């Protein structure tokens, strides 16, 4: 019994049938997990890692999904041939799961107590009072402060980190032997991510449970996993201990993945370059209205008195956690939302300009958005998407000239211009982000706001996009405002950095100074969490 693995997946295949066509998502995957061990499944999106994990609990959309081959043996039982009744006894009891998105994995209409207690009542038949005690115990274990007051909270009253803690409490309720964590920290801020990872590690050590950890983040794997399986295109191409994989990768794909960190140096700071965008004491306050007369009682200070300068050919990085006002700041600078304070663009004061007066200036200031899937209209061809700005700002050029400029912009961002009559859904995430960049670049702007342009992309694609952005900056002398929570990417692109928190600047300076010798406690904690996945105990940061 001792040398038998807890979970053994042999030659697992998953196929999806849609419209008579069969696509194989997972093809001959085999791995094993021993008691108390953490195995990480690593791969980029679409590599089949989540599908493999979901098939362990048979949570795929059957009968559209099927298993042409393979077996999944958990503690001596083959789960693939188990009946639904037997599966229900395993799910949430012996094997439980944490999902990626804490916003949607909790039912918004049920209280925390009801959701966590449900699993106890189903599998253990606990009474209300017994379940309540156990829920309190679990919430304390996962580090939720004052659990008694949280019992009757609804999910929307909790922060992202707290929600994920509740999810973990649910997963641990029945002391499972195996915990499957599907990207449990991807949707969270770096400091919260570090806390959640630490929590999982502690709980695992305490209970000796095994963990199947699905992630695309190699930093997490290196720190938390015992063994790694590298997946690509539905196959495990390499597996071994963490030390082996990271020090002596064998397969080309593993090497590629390891080498895919964003690299390169940001532009040199040059104070002689002209200032493109400047803001003094910029404020964006959203009023909170109460009462019958909707009187303004208070403000949400999303951006609260910020001064920044962006110079030609330079990149200003804006760093902060979600809700810190980074994007609001960027949108206010481009006059996409109303604000107070002086904004000047190319020496011209633009704060008082009407929307119409702004239109000619929009040619010179462009935005690249975060989500490559949401930022392109699904019903327009690539050529129409990229050419739309030309229609607005160069209405007099001929259709041939417009087509020529679109083709040139697409080639500049590394896309084949002959694909311009296709539609966005035919492109991968990285290619779509290139299309978004081409849409901004076709107008030959002077200033580009990059709102988390890499965070929705796979690691290796991130590196490509960072390279592309740097090349474009060099070629055209662009000024970038680079907004990101990903400090590694900021480090590779920005020569100056502003750290924001709750609408205010915590620390600002050259990027070397911020990254190598952070002054404020908050910046230090951020750096520790981002680069070393550590939870620095700084007052105010551990607020979960």
């Amino acid at each position, binding site marked *: 019994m001792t040398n038998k693995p807890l979970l053994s997946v042999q030659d697992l295949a998953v196929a999806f049938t*849609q*419209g008579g066509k069969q696509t194989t998502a997972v093809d001959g995957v085999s791995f094993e997990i021993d008691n108390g061990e953490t195995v990480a499944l690593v791969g980029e999106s679409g590599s089949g890692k989540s599908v493999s994990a979901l098939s362990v609990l048979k949570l795929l959309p059957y009968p559209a999904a099927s298993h042409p081959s393979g077996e999944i043996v958990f503690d001596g039982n083959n789960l693939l041939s188990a009946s639904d009744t037997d599966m229900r006894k395993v799910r949430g009891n012996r094997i439980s799961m944490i999902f990626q998105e804490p916003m949607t994995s909790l039912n918004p209409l049920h209280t925390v107590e009801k959701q966590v207690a449900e699993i106890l009542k189903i599998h253990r038949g606990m009474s209300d009072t017994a379940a309540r005690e156990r829920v309190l115990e679990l919430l304390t274990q996962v580090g939720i402060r004052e659990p008694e007051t949280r019992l009757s909270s609804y999910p929307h009253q909790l922060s992202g980190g707290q929600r994920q803690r509740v999810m973990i409490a649910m997963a641990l309720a029945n002391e499972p032997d195996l915990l499957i964590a599907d990207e449990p920290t991807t949707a969270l801020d770096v400091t919260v991510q570090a806390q959640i990872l630490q929590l999982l590690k502690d709980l695992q050590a305490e209970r000796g449970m095994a963990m199947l950890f699905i992630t695309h983040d190699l930093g997490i794997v290196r720190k938390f996993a015992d063994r790694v399986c590298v997946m690509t295109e539905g196959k495990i191409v390499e597996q071994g201990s963490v030390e082996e994989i990271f020090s002596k990768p064998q397969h080309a794909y593993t090497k*590629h993945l390891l080498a*895919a960190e964003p690299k390169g140096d940001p532009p040199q700071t040059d104070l002689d370059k002209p200032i493109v965008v400047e803001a003094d004491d910029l404020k964006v306050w959203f009023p909170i209205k109460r009462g019958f007369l909707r009187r303004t009682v208070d403000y949400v200070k999303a951006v609260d008195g910020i001064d920044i300068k962006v110079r030609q050919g330079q990149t200003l990085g804006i760093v902060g956690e979600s809700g810190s006002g980074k994007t609001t700041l960027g949108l206010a600078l*481009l006059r*996409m939302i109303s604000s107070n304070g002086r904004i000047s663009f190319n020496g011209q004061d633009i704060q008082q300009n009407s929307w119409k007066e*702004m*239109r*000619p200036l*929009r*040619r010179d*200031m*462009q*935005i690249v*958005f*975060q*989500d490559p899937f*949401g*930022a*392109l*209209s*699904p*019903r*327009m*061809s690539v050529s129409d998407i990229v050419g*739309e*700005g030309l229609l*607005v*700002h160069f209405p007099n050029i001929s259709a041939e000239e417009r*087509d020529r400029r679109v083709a040139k912009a697409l*080639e500049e961002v*590394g*896309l*084949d*211009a*002959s*694909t311009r*009559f*296709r*539609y966005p*859904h035919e*492109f*991968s995430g*990285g*290619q779509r982000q290139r299309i*978004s960049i081409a*849409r901004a670049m076709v*107008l030959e702007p002077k200033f580009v706001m990059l709102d988390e342009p890499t965070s929705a992309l796979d690691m*290796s*694609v991130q590196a*490509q996009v960072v390279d592309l952005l740097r090349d474009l900056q060099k070629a055209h002398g662009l000024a970038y405002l680079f907004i990101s929570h990903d400090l590694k990417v900021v480090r590779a692109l920005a020569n100056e950095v502003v750290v924001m928190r709750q609408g205010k600047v915590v620390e600002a300076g050259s990027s070397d100074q911020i990254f190598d010798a952070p002054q404020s406690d908050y910046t230090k904690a951020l750096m520790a969490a981002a680069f070393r996945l550590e939870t620095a105990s700084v007052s105010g940061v551990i607020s979960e």
Partner: protein
Amino acid sequence: MDSRLNKDLENEGYDVLYPLAEEMAPPPRKMRLSPINQRRLQNFKANKRGYWSLWIFLVLFTLAMFAEFLTNDRPILAVYKGEVLAPVFVDYPEEKFGGFLAVTDYRDPFIQDEINANGWMLWPPVRYSYRTVNNEIPVPAPAPPSWMMDKQERCQRYPLGADDPNCVIGNWNWLGTDDQGRDVLARLVYGFRISVLFGLALTVASSVIGVAAGAVQGYYGGWVDLLFQRFIEVWTAIPTLYLILIVSSVLIPGFWTLFTILLAFSWVALVGVVRAEFLRGRNFEYISAARALGVSNGVIMWRHLLPNAMVATLTFMPFILNGSISTLTALDFLGFGLPPGSASLGELLAQGKNNLQAPWLGITGFIVISLMLSLLIFIGEAVRDAFDPRKSLA
């Protein structure tokens, strides 16, 4: 970018998209459907029921549009004393043929003899219009369909009985007559035409107004939305039917009066759906991207947001169309619809109700109305399938 460069990029781990063969030359853009529309057409054809319904409906609709050539109380073409006449299009005075009426009655045996003696005439397959009263029906109106009687019985009222030149198949009442001796088939054809035209016109007009109103509310939000929504709530509280009853006691309701009154209330049906789609859509990143490009609000609404709202609109469209048709039918049934004497399906149903001894009236009306409404719903379902983004963008 040439292929050598592609290879290099690929070796470095970049994802490279190779062009398809047909993409090497830019396609002539206006000549063929875009890929999305091609897929939509395929999806539409894949819904066999809807596809066949469309063809059946198109055939019926085309036939009904040429109703004057199919069922009419005047010849399509006549040659009289060497002159070519087109009575379908032109009202010739009867004195041209030696009579005295202002408009020629071609069913009059005297006129028929006169024309046949000096030329010939081409009759449509059914020699009745929707308001032609058949004076030669063998039994008191409503008369049963002609095929239920033998030739002697059918033609007993003609001057020469079964040997009369008018005792021909063109003078059959295929579906009998109504209680005023008018041919039911002729009234059906004309009634079908006016119902469908009324329904289509009302649907198109109310969709245009409804989509525009919903778009403006959803896109601008805030006070515009608030005031407009409250207005719509007050407006929809007015009972349409009573209003029509009141109006029809003052005015004689015609096609356009009914159209205007119904339009005033039917446009709200789509506002909610379109408003919701625009409210959702205006926060999409590609809308922000378009705003950042300086694209004007009108263009954003038209080019970026409207396509999103179209699926929801198209889902509702068949129901609005059928709703319009059945409202008109209901008004006619109650006697508050089109002016007396017009061809209308509702009036046919009312006659069926009043003349239970003549089941051909009610049964015909029922079959035609249910067939028409079902065909339109099936077509609407197929159109909705075709525009379903999960199918056309998968």
